Structures are given as structure tokens and as C-alpha cells.
């Protein structure tokens, strides 16, 4: 009995750090944000309770919120699709080559470990109207588009540009996860399929794809949540401009909270963002069924 009690104490001590951290830096702030989202709060004066006004304003009279929501959903879909396809393609490619595998793995993964702020600034320079890509195009007599400042279209050009930069930066993460999953598939299954006359394409379709499904849920969830709360590249490349055309939920939140000091309103945006992230994760886990093929 004493030993059991001692074990409980030890368990408590070991759980305590994680519990404290979770409570202090996650649970308490979330509760605070829920309360602030129901207040008119500037950060400089005491919160003034206004009920659901912030949420009503968000969906009835905030034009930027509509743009931000549209852009965030676009970004999630674009990143979700492109990063899955390109990430899986690279993973399959690299698991099937021997020469230079590690070199290319590192090259593709390198942008993932670099600072997003630095990369954002780097790409902003490259897409600047006077220097970078347009300067290069002009030597061939081509006038490049206004990559980061074009405002035409339902999804303006800067959003596609930022989407492609995000793909370049984060595709390495999907590639690594898929490579790990593919490496775990027994070679025996492939060999058996080849003996049965399966082509490489068929073995990919009927063996690789079903067996990497668990990883699909993980990577898709990571992509979607990461894209929904995406901030750094957009902030460093366009600051949500011109005229909020490239604002996403996170940049809108930042502007409202840290530029206009409407912390209550910004908290309401963050709650919408949280709900969207939870809903997306729930949807992915419900929609993609994983069957166990190997014991």
C-alpha cells in the first residue's frame, strides 16, 4: 500500500510539470480569451462586458473578416491539396532512389527549419516590383505582374504567390513524414505483389496508398491547422495588404488586437479560429477511415 502511495506521489510529481504548463499557458489563457471575446477591451482600460456584440459585428459588418475568412479557407484548401500531393510525390521519389537520397531529403527539408520571417522578407524582395523576379523578366523585355500588390480576382494573385511560397517552405515536412511511413512498409508485400504481376504503379495504388492512410490523417490535420492559423509569411510579404486583400484570420486578429488595440474583438476572431481548427480536425478524423492491413 505504501509503495502504491509512493508511486502515486511520483506519478503526481511527474505529471505536475505538464499539468502546470497546460494550465498556465493554455487552459487559463483560453478561458481568459473566451471572456475577453465577450468584452469591449482595449488592453489599456478594464474590460467592459458587451455580450455577443463582437461576434455579431464580425459576421454582419466586418468586410475584412469576410475577406480573411475566404483567404484562410482558400489557403487551407490550397495548402492541403498541394502539400499532400507534392509531399507524397517527393517521398515516393526519394524512397525509390538510392543515389543522392539524403542530399535531396535535406535540400527539400531545409526551408522548413529556416525562419519564416527571414524567408518572408526574402520572398518579398524577390517579388518586389523593382528588384528580383520582375527585374530579371525585364531583361527579356517582359513586364512582370504586380506579384504582391495585384488586387483583381476573387482570389487575388498575392494569395496564390504566398500559397506557392508556403508550399515550397513546408512541403519538406510532409515529405519526411510520408518517407517515414513508407519506409515502415514491409518490402515483402511489394515483392509479393511483383510476383503476382503488379506493376510499380499498381503497387503504389494498392499497397503504398492504403498503408500510408494513418499518416495522411496526421499530415492533413497538420497542414489544415497550420494553414488556418497561418501568419508569418503573409505578415512579412504583404502585411495583409493592399487594402486587406491578402488578410487572413491571423493577420486580421493581429491588426485588430495590436494596431487598433481592440483586444476584445481580436479575442472573438481568435475564438472563431480555434473553432475552425477544431472543426477541421474533427472533420478529417471522421471523413478518413483507417483500416488496419498489417498486424
Amino acid at each position: 500500500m505504501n509503495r502504491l502511495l509512493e508511486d502515486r506521489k511520483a506519478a503526481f510529481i511527474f505529471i505536475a510539470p505538464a499539468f502546470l504548463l497546460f494550465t498556465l499557458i493554455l487552459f487559463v489563457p483560453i478561458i481568459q480569451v473566451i471572456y475577453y471575446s465577450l468584452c469591449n477591451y482595449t488592453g489599456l482600460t478594464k474590460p467592459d462586458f458587451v455580450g455577443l456584440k463582437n461576434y455579431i459585428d464580425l459576421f454582419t459588418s466586418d468586410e475584412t473578416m469576410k475577406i480573411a475568412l475566404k483567404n484562410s479557407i482558400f489557403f487551407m484548401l490550397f495548402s492541403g491539396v498541394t502539400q499532400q500531393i507534392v509531399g507524397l510525390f517527393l517521398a515516393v521519389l526519394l524512397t525509390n532512389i538510392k543515389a543522392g537520397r539524403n542530399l535531396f531529403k535535406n535540400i527539400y527539408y531545409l526551408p522548413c527549419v529556416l525562419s519564416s520571417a527571414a524567408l518572408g522578407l526574402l520572398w518579398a524582395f524577390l517579388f518586389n516590383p523593382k528588384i528580383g523576379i520582375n527585374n530579371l523578366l525585364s531583361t527579356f523585355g517582359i513586364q512582370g505582374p504586380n506579384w504582391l500588390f495585384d488586387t483583381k480576382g476573387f482570389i487575388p494573385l498575392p494569395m496564390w504567390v504566398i500559397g506557392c511560397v508556403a508550399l515550397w517552405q513546408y512541403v519538406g515536412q510532409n515529405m519526411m513524414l510520408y518517407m517515414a511511413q513508407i519506409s515502415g512498409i514491409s518490402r515483402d508485400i511489394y515483392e509479393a505483389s511483383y510476383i503476382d504481376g503488379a506493376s510499380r504503379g499498381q503497387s503504389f495504388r494498392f499497397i503504398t496508398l492504403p498503408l500510408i492512410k494513418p499518416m495522411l490523417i496526421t499530415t492533413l490535420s497538420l497542414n489544415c491547422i497550420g494553414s488556418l492559423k497561418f501568419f508569418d509569411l503573409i505578415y512579412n510579404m504583404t502585411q495583409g495588404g493592399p487594402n486587406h486583400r491578402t488578410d487572413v484570420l491571423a493577420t486580421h486578429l493581429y491588426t485588430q488586437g495590436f494596431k487598433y488595440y481592440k483586444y476584445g474583438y481580436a479575442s472573438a476572431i481568435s475564438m472563431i479560429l480555434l473553432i475552425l481548427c477544431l472543426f477541421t480536425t474533427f472533420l478529417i478524423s471522421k471523413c478518413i477511415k483507417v483500416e488496419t492491413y498489417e498486424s
Partner: protein
Amino acid sequence: MVKRFVSGFLAAALVLGSLSGCSVSTDTGGGAGSSGATTETTSGSVTATGKEEQITWMFWDDLNATEDLISKGYKQVIDRFNEQYKGKYYCNVVTTNLEEYPTKLNALVTSGNTPDVFICNPGPNLTQYVESGAAADLTDILKNQESQWYGTFTDGIFERITYDGKIMAVPTNFAAACVFYNTDIFKKAGVEVPKTYDELLAACKKIKEAGYTPISCSAGTAWCLSMIAGYLCDREGGPDNLVDVNAGKIEWTSKTFVDAATKLKELSQYFQDTAAGDSNDQATANFYNGDAAMLVQGSWAIAQINGNNPEFEDKCGVFQFPAIEGGSDPNRMIVKTDNLVMSSTTKHKEAALALMKMFTDDTAQKYTAEVAGKIPVTKVSIDYDKAPKQFAYINDILKNVTGTLGFYNESLASVEAGDTFDAAMVDVFLGNAEPQQALQKVQDFYNKNVWKK
């Protein structure tokens, strides 16, 4: 027992280690001796010993890396302060870039770490610190305790930083928005300095035909575009426009504003091709590199122009923004002061005051005019031969000025209202909306947030 102690110690270390990783640093670069929140030091010859009374000053440029002559002057003030009060007071400087400045300052104010003295724009930016009680009331200090110092300031300089009769800041310099022009290009294109808006359009046409960009402007940095819009609004309707629209007596969609926005659209056809994406610095560089004939900017640009291309000073002329025929008083000028605010919670009032006085002493104010080309806020005598040539031109223009106004976006009801106006003007420029439609958005904002209809 030992095992339990070790496991308990390790758990505590883990918690503390993790929590220390969560601490927020407000270190923003710029100083050689930076060591975290509000303790960044300048790279002057004097270093803090830890025995003196230390204060913090927050500023929006990196004093060690800057090429801006005003910022360099501020660095000299800090170095002089630390030298003069060696062993008694010491000033630490927290710097950020301009874009991040309000956010970081606000975070410090919110967390109860307001810098003892910080720089602040007039208008809604200052208003929020006044209304929240973060800014100290300096009226008694200026008018009673330091009346001699107060007497050195030029008349009316405190007007835009006075709230209900209370002086809430001390200005360090003031800038006036003018049109800078390249005299070489004007000569080659055969154009004279335009006095009216129609003459300006005609000059732009001729300059364009001569193969030059008539006007360099940044719409990527929206306030640059909105400064031209502000001048057009004021030239159309005068001071009444701003007063009445803030008071709810006229609407943003009224003829005077629509005409101004239409003229902005008309004028924007003479901007450089990359105006939509160019930053303020790029637009200014277009001008001092000789690619564009005109630049509408505040007189702080003198420091930037002469600092980056000293040879350009000789061919840089200045004229006041042209009149609109049938419009309002053409001799009104957009002006703006840089202001020092003292924290209401500072525990080092004497030291903060000594620093503020040093920013406005004769040495600093002479530097402001003679080196940086900005207009002093005190009655200090200036050697015009030493000052940049543009300073004398602006001084000549100021002699005819009948009234002043603040930057339009900084004179509206709030920071967000100013941004909404800026955004509307960018929309007009980009062709995303007709002037009437763009101004309707500003009106909608005012209806909801300012007039509370």
C-alpha cells in the same frame, strides 16, 4: 529519500526551465549591450555602472544603424545626456522599426512597463495614451516649474498635443509636407513650378512626354498616397472639411471629398509604374536618384534625401502643394511634430525631465535645422548657410502659411478611421472602386464607429 529528492528537484527544474522559456523579451535590437526587456544600452562612450538612476527612452529607429539625420541627432542627444549626467542618470534606449513601434510600445504599456519617455505621433496615437492615463500631464511642469524652458518654444507649437488645456507631450521638431522637385528635370522638360492643380497636371504631362516619371509616390505605404489625398481634400474644402466630417456635419460622400478623390485618381496616372508596390523608401529613392521629377513628402525627407545622395541637394527645389481654382485657401500646410511623452508612472521624473530638456536645448535644435533640415520647435537662431538648402526653401514657404493641419489620416477620429481613409484612397488609386464607392466605405465606418448611427 535521495531518489525522491532527486526526482522532485528534476521536476521543479523542468517546470522552471519551461517557464523561463516562456518569458517575453522586449529587446528590439540596435544596442551593443542589449540584455533583454528595457535594458538596452546605446553604444556611446559612456556605459552604465549600475549606480546611477536609469531611465528608458523608446524610439522608432535603430540609432546605431540609421542613415537618417534626425535619428543620428537623437543619438547625439542620448550620448550627451549620458556624458553630462555621468554617475547621476543614465538613459537606456529601446528601439524598434517604425512599423512595429506602436505595437511594441502598447505591449509595454499594457504590461505596466511603460518606458519613462517615449516618442509619439500627434493625433489618435497620442490620444490613446492620454485617455488611458499612460501619458503624464506636463502642464504644471512646463507652465510653473520650468516656465523658462516653456518660454523657449515657438508659439502655438503645443496646440495639437494639448487636451482640455493639459499639455501631454513636448515636441522635438516639426515637419511640413511640401512638393520636392528635381530642378534639372523641370528645366529639361521646360516646365515652371506649378501654382495651381491644373498647372500641376500640365507640368506632369510635359514631364512624361520628356521621358521622365512626373511624380514618385508610394501606395504600398498607404499614408504616402493619403498625404496627397489629404492635401486635395483640404485644398477643396479647407479646414471646414476636417472639422465638419469629424463632427458629423458633412458626409464623406459629399461633393468636396468626391472631387478630391477624383483628382487623386487623375493625378495618379503620372505616378511611377510600380507605385502600387513601392514602399515609402523606394518612392523617395526614385526621386533622389533622379528617376522622378516630384515627390510629395514631409520635410523629414530632406534628411533622407541628403543623407543618401548629398549631390542631389543642389538640384532639389521645394514648392507648396498647388491651389485648386475655385477651392479653398491654398496657403494651408500639412505639418506634424515628433513628440516626447513622459510616462505617468515613471519613478524617475527628474531624470526624464532632464532628458526631455536636452532634446529641446539649443544644441539639439540647431542640429535639427542645420544638419537634419527639420524645423526647430524653439526660438533658437539658425545659421541658414549651414542648413540644407531645402530648409531655407521650406522656411520661405512657411512665411506665407495662413494655417496648418495635421496629416489627414492622423486627424480623423481614430487610428482605424485613418486607416479606413488610407485604404479608400488606395482603392481609388488601384481602380478597385470609384471615388464615390470608396468614400462610401469611409462613411460607413463613420456611421458605425464615430457617429454611432
